[in-house]
């Protein structure tokens, strides 16, 4: 999905289920046992492999967006319809198939400020440099 978003990076190696897994009013991850349990996805650039669970999850993304609690942007390794439709309806920038794979340096990324810019057919996730910049393209 085209668009531009900026926020701290939040990286999950586990897939995310939006319906039932994320509170549609606050953006807090409610799925017990999930590595993001208790964290908020509001305003972050959320990086996870792909979505899972019920397709009602698309509406959860829309609900979050309408309340200003949606992620500022989403990066997926593989896009699937739940997240694609949710980002489309909620106007959330979505990038997929990032290269290099952000999970190879996950620890370094978490919490860093990043900007996601997605234009026709191309996405750029830019980690805001503190001392020196890191960039990746897709």
């Amino acid at each position, binding site marked *: 999905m085209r668009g531009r978003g900026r926020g701290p990076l939040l990286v999950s190696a586990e897939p995310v289920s939006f319906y039932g897994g994320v509170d549609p009013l606050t953006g807090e991850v409610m799925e017990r046992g999930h590595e993001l349990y208790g964290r908020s996805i509001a305003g972050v650039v959320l990086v996870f492999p792909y979505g899972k669970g019920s*397709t*009602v999850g*698309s509406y959860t993304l*829309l609900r979050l967006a309408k309340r200003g609690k949606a992620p500022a942007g989403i990066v997926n390794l593989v896009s*699937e*319809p739940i997240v694609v*439709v949710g980002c*489309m*309806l909620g106007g959330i920038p979505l990038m997929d198939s990032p290269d290099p794979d952000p999970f190879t340096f996950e620890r370094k990324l978490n919490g860093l400020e990043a900007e996601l810019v997605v234009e026709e057919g191309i996405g750029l996730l830019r980690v805001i440099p503190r001392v020196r910049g890191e960039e990746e393209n897709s």
Partner: protein
Amino acid sequence: MVQLVPEERKMLSGSLGEGVALAMETVVKVAEVLGAPKLVKISSAHISGVSYRNLGEEGVEFLEELAAKGARFSVPTTVNPAGFDLEAHSEMGVGEEEYELQMRIVRALVSMGARVTLSCTPYLISPPSFGEHLAWAESNAVLYANSVVGARTNREGGPLSVLEAIVGRAPYVGLHADEGRAPTVVVNASGVKSFVEETGAVSALGYLLGAEVKRGVPLLANAPRNIAHPGNLRLFLAAVGAASSIGMVLIENVSPEFRRVEGLEEIPLEEGELEGVLERWSGEEFDAVVLGCPHLSPGELAELASRMKGRRVKRQVLVFTSRWAASRAADAVAALKGNGVKVYADTCMVVGNLSALGIRRCATDSAKAAYYLSNQGYEVVLAPRDSLLKAVLERS
């Protein structure tokens, strides 16, 4: 790249309205992500995610905005159950605010041209034909259309099906294409065949198959004979859908596209595994028996009514069906009510609110209902319909 025909490009351009353009843009994006080479025209759509409890205020606004932007369904479109029986909402403990939210959803869907079937069994109400392409979102209906009718639909998803109904097209990929309908794995049921035939545990069998296979197109070999009974078939397929992302099962003597393929991996189902499924929902106590996941057919309502002749219920029995089936089997519904059974249309135990009826522990014959109800915090007993009825009926 998704190849679009001129009419599809016109929808995308916005000249047919903003709603149509948003719908087309999203359908094309999904097609791109799924690797579909083109879109395919559909002959009907079925929308899930209709209950106010699933959609919330923002989901309702989304449907209203689409309708206000002039979007209309371009193919016959049916819809899944609502959060309560539209004609018995106060009896079901539904407040005015919730009633109004649900009615806004219904009105938005109607204004876009939906038929207010409010049922998970569109295949009974407006049966599709072999080979037709559909955009159906409810998983049990998707499994039925593909496995029993030979119609073609993926598990399109609730929000996507709304958009596909507007543009009248779905991404041509997965179960829409010939190559997506070939069996990917053989499931050998010989180890559980006699157990299921003796106990009637067809729904637990579906759940086990789903949990073991998870995706693809399983071919079921050595299926128990009782699986072909229409009511059992629906229970079986619904349970497959609840436990997996499977959209089609090839069943011998049932599926028109059943064919054996050499060299596939074979997964045997064991009796112990099936007992494991039953044990998961094996309590003794329950406040109510809840039937109708999927919605009972007119035939099942009649069967139930004749079973109850001269008997009454010792504990609450709730039956969920479509308004279509209830009107077709009006005598049976009246007889059931006379026997003390509560019959509700438009809704079901999964998307409705049993706790508002004072129910905490329920017994059901549907593993799909058992799965979703236990996720919602209810205590659940799963047992075949016959033994549930034996437990709650007494001579009157």
